[in-house]
C-alpha cells in the first residue's frame, strides 16, 4: 500500500513539476510589458523587436487611414512624448482621435511602432487614475469595460 502511495505521490510531483515548468515557460515567452510613449522613447534602440503594449491618447489630427491599402497611421501621446504607430486594417469602432487606445506590437526601425492589435475598447484600462474621481463613475467605467467583452 505505502509503495503505491509513494508511487502516486511521485507521479503527482512529476505532473505538478511539468505544470510548473509549462507555466513558467509560458510567462517568460508571453509576457508583454505595458509602456508609455515616454518610456518607449527612453528605451530607444533597446526596445527593438520586443512586444509591448503601448498606451496613450490618439493625437487629434494625426489619424490617417487609406481605405484601399488599409494602412492606418496615427500618433500616440502620453502628454510628453509622441510615438508614430502603423497598423494594417480598419480602425476599430471605439477608436478615434482624442480618445485613449492601447496598441500591441513591436517598435521597429524608423521610430515606428508596428501594431498588430488595437485595443480601443479597453482605453479605460490605461487612463492614468485621477484622484478624487467619483466612485460611481469608476464603477460605471469598470462595468462598461466588462460588458463590452
Amino acid at each position, binding site marked *: *500500500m505505502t509503495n*503505491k*502511495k509513494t*508511487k*502516486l505521490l511521485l*507521479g*503527482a510531483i512529476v*505532473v*505538478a513539476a511539468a*505544470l510548473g515548468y*509549462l*507555466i513558467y*515557460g*509560458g*510567462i517568460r*515567452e*508571453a*509576457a*508583454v*510589458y*505595458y509602456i508609455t510613449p515616454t518610456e518607449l522613447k527612453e528605451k530607444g534602440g533597446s526596445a527593438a523587436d520586443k512586444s509591448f*503594449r503601448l498606451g496613450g491618447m490618439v493625437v487629434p489630427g494625426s489619424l490617417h*487611414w487609406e*481605405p*484601399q491599402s*488599409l494602412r492606418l497611421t496615427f500618433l500616440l501621446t502620453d502628454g510628453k512624448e509622441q510615438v508614430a504607430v502603423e497598423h494594417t*486594417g*480598419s*480602425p476599430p*469602432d*471605439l*477608436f*478615434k482621435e482624442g480618445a485613449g487606445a492601447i496598441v*500591441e506590437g513591436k517598435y521597429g526601425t524608423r521610430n515606428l511602432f508596428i501594431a498588430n492589435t488595437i485595443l480601443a475598447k479597453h482605453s*479605460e*484600462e490605461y487612463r492614468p*487614475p485621477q484622484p478624487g*474621481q467619483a*466612485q460611481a463613475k*469608476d*464603477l*460605471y*467605467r*469598470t*462595468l*462598461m*469595460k*466588462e*460588458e*463590452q*467583452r
Partner: protein
Amino acid sequence: MISTLGRFSLALALGIALYGALVSILGAQRRRPALVESGRGAVFAVFGLVTFAVLLMEAALVGRDFSIQYVARNGSLGTPLLYTVIALWGALEGSILLWIWILALMSLLAVQIEGKRHREMIPYATAVLLCISAFFLFLAAFPANPFKSIFPPPIDGRGPNPLLQNHPLMAIHPPCLYAGYVGWSIPYAFAMAALITGRLGDEWIRTVRRWSIMAWGFLTMGIILGGWWSYAVLGWGGYWAWDPVENASLLPWLTGTAFLHTVMIQERRKMLKVWNLALIITTFSLTIFGTFLTRSGILSSVHAFSESTIGPMFLAFIALILFSSFWLLVKRSDGLKAEGDLDSLISRESAFLMNNLLLLGFAFAVFLGTLFPLLSEAVRGVKVSVGEPFFNKVNVPIGLVLIFLMGIGPLIAWRRASLESLRRTFTVPLLLAFLGSGVASFVGVRGLYPLLAFALAVFAAVTVLQEFARGTLTRRRITGEGYLTALSNLTRRSRRRYGGLIVHLGVVLVVIGITASTIFKLEKEVTLERGESVHLGRYQVRFDELTARQEPQRFVVEGTFSVFNAARKVAEMRPSKRFYSSEQQPIGSVHVRSTPREDLYLILSSFTRDGASATLKVLIRPLVMWIWLGGAVMALGALVAIWPDRRVLAAEPLKERVAWQPGRS
C-alpha cells in the same frame, strides 16, 4: 414611491436574513424546533421581499421612471421592450439584484426539497445561505443600491449600453451564468453544515451531488452562451479571448468539474473526504471571486480598486469564507479519514486523481494569467500582462491530456484494471483515433497539437459511443427489448453515468469545433467599390449597395452583400453599423451565416458617405456551430444526470446499478 418601497424591501430583507441566520443556529444548538422553523420562514420572507424588489425595478424600467437613477442610466424612451426588461442585468446595481433573487430562489428550493430529509443539517445550511444572501443584500441596500433616486429626473434616459441591446442572447446569457455561480452556494452550504454538525458521512455528498450538477450545468451554459454572444455581437470573429471576465467564469467551472469527478470516488471508495470539501469551498470562493474580479474595478488598476467601495467588501467577504471554512475543515479533519485505499495505479481512482490534478493546474494557470498584471505591478512595479499566447501555450497541452483521460476515466475499472480488460475496452477507440488523425492529416491538418486534438477527440467519442452500444446490446440480449427501448432504459437505469457520458460527447464536439475553427480560419479585409467582389474560400462576396435608415433608438447604416458559392447565389448578407445617440462612436453589427460545415462572418468596417465603397472584413470559420451544439449536448447530459428518478425517491440507497460493468464483461 418605487424608490422608497424598493429601499425598504431590500433593507427589510437584509434584516430578516440576518435574523433568520441567527435563529437557525440558535434553534439547532438549543434544539428548539420553533426557532428552526422561524429560520425557514426567513428564507421564504427574503425570497418574497427580493421578488417584490425585482418586480418594482421592472415596473420602474418598463414604466420609464427616470427619477430612479438606475432607470435613467439604463433605460430610455426609445429602447424596445425586451431590452428594457433585461436592462435589469445591464449594469452593476441591477445585476446584484438579479443575483440575490436567484440566490433567494435557490435557497428556497433547497430548504423545501432537502428540509424533510436532513433535519440536523438543514438549520446550518439555512444559516449559511442566509448569510450569503445578507452579504449581497447589504451591497444592494447600501453601496450599490439600485433604487437611488435623482432629482430632477431627466426627460429621457441614457439607455442600455448599445452592445447590450444588440442581441437577444443578452436575455439568457447573464441569468444562466448567475445561476451557475449562485448554484454553488447550495453545495457549499451543505458542506459547511456537514462540517459544523460533524455528520461527515455520505449524507451531505448525496445531497449536494444533484445540486452541484445543476450549478455546473448552468455555469456551462452561461460560459458557452457568453462565447456565442461575444461571437455574434462584439464583431471580432472570435468567441473566447481569455479576457478576465471569461476567465473568472471558467475558474469555478474547472474546480467544480474536478469536484464532480472526485465525489464519485468518495461515494464509492470513501476516500478523498478532505479533498472534496476543499474543492467545494474553493469552487464557491471562486464564484464570489469572479464577481469581485469583474465588479470591483481591480483589473483596470489598483487605484480604481481602492476607490471603489464594494471591492474591499468583496475581498473581506472572500477572506472570511476562506478562513472560516478551512478552519472548520482543519478542526474536523479527524472525522474525515479515508476508509478506503488506492489499490492500483491502473484504476479509475488514479485516472480521476490525475484529472483533478490537471484541472486544478489548468485553473491555477488561468488564475495566474488573469492576475499577472496585478501581481507584477504589486511586486515589481511594472505592469506586465500575459495574453492569449500564454493561455494557449499552457492550457492547450493540459487540455489535450484531459481529453485523453476523459476517454479513459469512465471505462477503466474501479480498484484495479486488468491488462486484458484494458485491451478489450481501448483497442477499437485507439485504432479509430489513429485513423482519425490520419484523416485529419489528409484534409490538411498540420502540427502536433491539432492532430492530437482530433485524434483524442475521436478516441473519447468512440469510447462513449462504444459504451452506449455495448450496454444497449447487452441489455437487448438479456431483456429482448428493441434497440431504442434498450438504449433508453439503459440510460434511465443509471442516469448519472450515462448523463456524464453524454456530457463527454458534448465536450468532444466543443473541442472539435474550437480546433477546426482555429486552424482553418480564413480572413480577409478589403475595400470594395459598388459591384466589386472579393473571393475567400469557396465564397465570392459582392458589394451591392449601402442603405441608411432611422430606427426608434438608433440610426443604421447597412451594407448589402450577395454571397455566391460556385456562381450560385446562396445568401444576401447585411452587416451594419449602428449609431446610438448616447454614443459618439458607431457600434458594428456583424452578419453571420452559419452552416454545420462553416460560418461566413461579415463585418462592415467602414464606408464612404456617398455609399460608393465599403470596407469589409470577411471571415470563414469552419465548424463553429459544433461548439454551440456541444454546449447544448453538455447541458442535455447534465439534465439527464439530475432528472428525478422515481425509484431513487423511494428511499433506496443511491447506488449505481449498471447492467454493464465497464472493463469487466
